[in-house]
């Protein structure tokens, strides 16, 4: 399955990519802001998107809206701050499949991906 990683933090992007090594996934793109994220999404049509909420240019929720418009079957994992429960909830309402709260561990990430991929 194809994964797009969207996060304004390079460290987190790298962490996600590295931690996902055990899964049979193909990382098709990494984006640091919403605009690039949408561009890459349209190009690569990934199955899974990890999506940071707070980002420059276009924020995560708007990106989520766009993705849901293009393909509601896309499995979006929202990554948000611990305190932003409401945002996470509204993202899930919009169609995100799961979420992660920063900071997260490798185990948590794996957990979420197992849920998402049904493994």
């Amino acid at each position, binding site marked *: 399955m194809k994964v797009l990683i969207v996060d304004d933090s390079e460290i987190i992007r790298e962490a996600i990519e590295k931690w996902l090594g055990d899964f049979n996934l193909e990382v098709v793109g990494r984006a640091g802001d919403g605009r690039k994220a949408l561009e890459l999404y349209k190009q690569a049509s990934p199955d899974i998107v990890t999506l940071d909420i707070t980002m420059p240019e276009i924020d995560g929720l708007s990106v989520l809206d766009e993705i849901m418009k293009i393909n509601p079957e896309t499995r979006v994992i929202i990554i948000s701050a611990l305190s932003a*429960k409401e945002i996470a909830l509204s993202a*899930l*309402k919009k169609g995100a499949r799961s*979420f992660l709260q920063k900071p997260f561990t490798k185990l948590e990430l794996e*957990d979420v991906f197992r*849920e998402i991929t049904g493994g």
Partner: protein
Amino acid sequence: MKKYSLISAAFLLAFIFPLYGAPSVIVKDYRKDLIFNNEKVVLIQKGDNPEYRELSFDDSSWEKTSLPSDWSSFYGDWKGICWYRIHVRFPSGLPEKGLGVRLGIISDADETYFNGTLIGKSGSIDSPPVSAYDKIRVYELPTALIRPGEDNVIAMRVRGLFPGESGAFSNDFRIGPYQDIFWNYISKEIFDLIFVVIYFVVGVYFGLFFLRRRQDRENLFFSLFCVMVGNYLLLRTQFKHLFNLDFYTVKKIEYMILSLLVILFIEFIMFYFKQKHRLYHKILIVLSIIPFFMILFSGSFIFWDKLNLWYIQPLWIVLAGTGIFILITRFGKNNDARLMGYTIFILLASVINDILVTRNIYQFTRMTGYGFFFFIGSIAIILDNKFVRLHSEVEDLNVNLENRVEEKTEKLLYAMEEMEAAKRETDNILLNVQEGIFLLDKNLHIGPNHSSMLELIFNKKDLSGANFIDIMKDMIQAEEITAVKDFIDLFIEGKVAEKRLMKLNPLQEIRIQIPDGFGFKEKYLRFSFNRILERGENVFLLVTVQDATEEKELEKRIKDTEQKAQREMELLFELIHINPQILKKFVKDTNNEIKRIEENLEKAQFSTDLKGLLAGLYRSVHAIKGDAGQLGLEIFSQRAHGVEETIQFLTEKKDLVAVDLISLLYSLVHLKDPLKEIESLVHRLSDYQSLARVDEFTDREILIEAIIQMVSRVAGREGKKVTIDLEGFHLPAMNDASLSLLKKIIIQIAKNSVSHGIETPNERGEKGKPETGKIAIRTENRPDGYDIIVHDDGRGIQLDAILSKAVSLGKYDEEELKKLPREKIAMMIFDSGLSTQHDVSIDSGRGVGLDIVKTEIQRIGGKISLKYSPDRYTEFRIFIPIA
């Protein structure tokens, strides 16, 4: 003898008759009913002649025959007129009662003459065929016509109808008393009528059966069958003749009944034995109904008769065969079939018997009537038996069913008990559980089975069916509601893993305001959610609410306690140096002082002398401050100082109004707080010390301790060195109040000495004095009291400073002051508001202190005086009277 002769005479007569040629019926006794069947006493002649009726007509050429007799043996199928002549001989004399004659059944019509006179006629001899062919002829013989002892002739003019059944072909032939003959005739008919009634009753009985139970069609057919038979028999009786019914119509109905009778019975058997209607059976039904309508629409009797003979009756054989076949096939397994078979056999036997008897093959009683009665009765009994059998079966079944129902009911009751027990258990749990537990349906309505605690937690009643969001709206902010809605929606949707979603629970811990009494109560609630799947569908949310308020309050209390403990520690460090007895005294004194302040405030109400009030309060607060300072209670004396400053501020305030004193209240509250803490600490300390059995101090020791403490503190703070000499200090016994007052006075004066008398070590050095100053306190006894003398080796009273302060306060005129004697000026240090200290400090300097001393001394009737020498000493002498 007479008897014998009569009999022998009759005998003789009987033998004599043949001698006359014509055979005769000989009536020996008018009273006897004589049957002349089969006696060759009848003459018959084909053709018609009016003379034939006459007594005198010679009939010797006529054929001789006996009755009953149809004339076919003589005249073939002749349907015209024939005459019968019967000669009768009566005894001598006329009968007492009228005589009658019965002439059997004559087919079809007749006119009967007696000795040439018409005595009766039946049917219509001259018009078409059917009129009275089954009528029994019973006619009266008019007594007047009888020729006793002579030849009499009954002549019957008869029209025939059927071949082989024409003329007086059947039944009884009698002559005798008319009444006897008639009653004999009618009783037979009545007897038949009884059968008819029975058939009708049976018919109606089973008809009603059928009406009650439509599915048992055998009852309908049996009922119809019985009614038809009854009807038929009724029509066949002589009553139709008696009541002059239209013979033609009666016969039509009879034939119609005959066409249906057997098929009705076959139908009955088929339904009774649950024989399916095959095509063959249906054809039989149609074949049976066809003649019914043919007769109905046809007016020809001959046709009916032919139809009956050549169609209906042969069909009966087919039908009977079919019925018998149905019965025979069931003989083996069905008792009823066997019984019915026998019944039908007997019926058939009786019918055959009658046919044979009718044909005069042999002579026997007619059996069909009885056969039918037996037949119908038997079948009724069989049906009834079946009904009784069924009924008892049904009863058995009912009993069985009742047992089963009882059994089931028991099981049900047991199950209900179990359910109730389970419900009780659930109810108990819901009643006693400490959490609010409830179910939410898809529409977010609270289920009816929620724990009792829930109402308490939400402080709301009637929660069943209430909308959860509506309830939450009252408790949390509008923006939080959206999150709650989203969360629950997602939870119900079930797309996101429950475990993960729980991390976003916006109600994990919420603070809510719940109306309570006059205000609101703050509560902390924790919600947890579980999805409950029913038949794989996500239907309910199980919600658990925990009231975490106590936990939270405990947390807060712990935090408060920690803070308090820290404050206490600080206080403790201060207190630890102070003797607990002294502390106790301090607390007591201070409390009294504060109470006095509060009382004064409460008393003041709308007093206008606010400044005077404030001055009084100031003195009290100052005393408190002094005590605290003297004991080294920094926190406390700082607060007392704060109160002082407030009073100072208020005193100096222009346009002071009563309500401004609120600030004073606030600073007082501020002062009281640490006092309470000290109080409880002292309490605890003294508890501890009493356990440790520390010796009680004497009043003197307590006082001395307090003085030393104070002096060393003030000296330390002001950088002075002071020793204190208490050699000559001896107190008389006194009560607490006096001791407290004395303490106040001595401490104030000693404090004044340290602050204003003793110089700094430097100053003393410059003056050539030892660096350490000395304060000596002693007592001198007087007759009415005692003196307390406080002596210091300090700078003495500084008159200049007093003067300039007095002037600056504007209390005195400068010129006036200069005129005052030195003593007076010195005594001004006891005036309120004068303080010669340059800096206002915690321990002294507000000018209150000595003024309090003076006021107090004057209050108890004492005196205060002072003497001094500049740079050498100051000595206060206080006289305390003993009451």
